[in-house]
């Protein structure tokens, strides 16, 4: 029952997004623009794994801040939040929105990572792509969970501005950024003597538990913002 509600919300998100594709094309262009700027700034110079990991994560966080904040703001602007409240439980609404945001961010990450590594001509000879996918995948899920909750808070405020979304989210996201950059560096594997998996596994565990805590905390707290 709960799962069906959450799935219905998820499908509704995809359907409304597919009608206009505003978020998708907007965020996609933001990502491409960011990649172009980074590429131009470095002018094809080779960047080591430290720099590449930091740039990748900063690009991902800013992309998420532009793309993932719309979910609840839209419901508030169109006045459709009440209808959702009648049809589904609060946690199911959160889960459906979160699933959509996580899918969107995972797709954007999958698009951005090879492009960025290519643009910075990072040496991927020793890269462990399995570990890299784990780090980026788990990181994206945690980031999507945080933005889903903060966007619900911003939807309640005056102006519902993106600046407020970023101000609320970034301090909470720092652990994810921190562990994500470390894990990405380890998975790219240039500066470590041990294997990339064993270097990255600690980061992967922390990123996984960060995501789990973000989801659990949101499920507990979301009811209080939603049914008010």
């Amino acid at each position, binding site marked *: 029952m709960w799962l069906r509600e959450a799935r219905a919300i998820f499908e509704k998100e995809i359907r409304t997004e597919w009608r206009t594709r505003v978020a998708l094309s907007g965020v996609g262009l933001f990502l491409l623009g960011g990649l172009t700027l980074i590429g131009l700034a470095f002018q094809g110079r080779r960047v080591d794994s430290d720099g590449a990991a930091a740039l990748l994560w900063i690009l991902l966080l800013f992309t998420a801040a532009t793309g993932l904040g719309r979910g609840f703001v839209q419901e508030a602007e169109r006045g459709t939040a009440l209808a959702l409240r009648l049809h589904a439980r609060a946690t199911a609404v959160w889960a459906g929105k979160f699933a959509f945001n996580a899918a969107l961010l995972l797709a954007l990450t999958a698009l951005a990572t090879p492009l960025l590594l290519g643009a910075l001509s990072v040496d991927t000879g020793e890269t462990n792509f399995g570990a890299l996918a784990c780090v980026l995948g788990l990181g994206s899920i945690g980031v999507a969970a945080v933005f889903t909750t903060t966007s619900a808070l911003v939807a309640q405020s005056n102006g519902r*501005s993106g600046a407020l979304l970023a101000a609320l989210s970034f*301090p909470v996201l720092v*652990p994810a950024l921190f562990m994500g950059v470390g894990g990405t560096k380890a998975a790219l594997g240039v500066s470590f003597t041990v294997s990339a998996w064993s270097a990255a596994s600690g980061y992967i565990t922390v990123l996984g538990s960060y995501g789990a*805590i973000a989801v659990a*905390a949101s499920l507990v707290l*979301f009811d209080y913002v939603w049914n008010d």
Partner: protein
Amino acid sequence: MSGTIKNLLGKLVLFLWMSAGLAYVFLKLPAAEGFQNPELARMVTLHLPCAYVAVIAAFISGWHAIVYLRGRAILSDSKSSSSAALAALFCLLTTVTGSFFAKVQWGEFWNWDPRQTSVFLLLLIYAAYFVLRASIDDPEKRASVSAVYMLFAVMMTPMLGYFIPKAMPQSLHPKMASFDSAYRLGIYVCLLPPLLGTMLWLNSLSIRLEKLRLAQEEL
């Protein structure tokens, strides 16, 4: 009448304790041998109590946020936000005293040390909390939204205190600080109680102010 006397007595005790404590750490406390600059390392007796008081204020604030969400009494929200302001103030004092200490001890005002970063992040979270409060007009909505943000941040940031120092063992801060008895006296007896008392006093003042404002709105 007896309330006034008690009030006055409380302030007097606070003032005398603070003066005696400051006199002790500035005049009597021996220089900390084994530090880069033993004379200036005394500063730790001010730095550490500020950090403790900030954490206590943060807990009080989080506690009242929970109480608000359970009972929906608007006064709990005022209590939560006034302790949050004091937590932010003491975080700022911790950051400032800490960065002077870092300059003396490690040569830089800022080292991106995990604990420096986590106190600074706490400061950012409180700043975001007050921006969020300012952007919501309806008092009840403001109360529940900001309580949720506060608790969300409280649940997400222990990650900082626990995992990141673990992942970055090269912290400049000692894992287990071992002070000798003169320093323990300076920190836990001379300065922690009066600073804590000051925080609680300021907190009660701002809650009283808030109560008056709520009563005025009802008129």
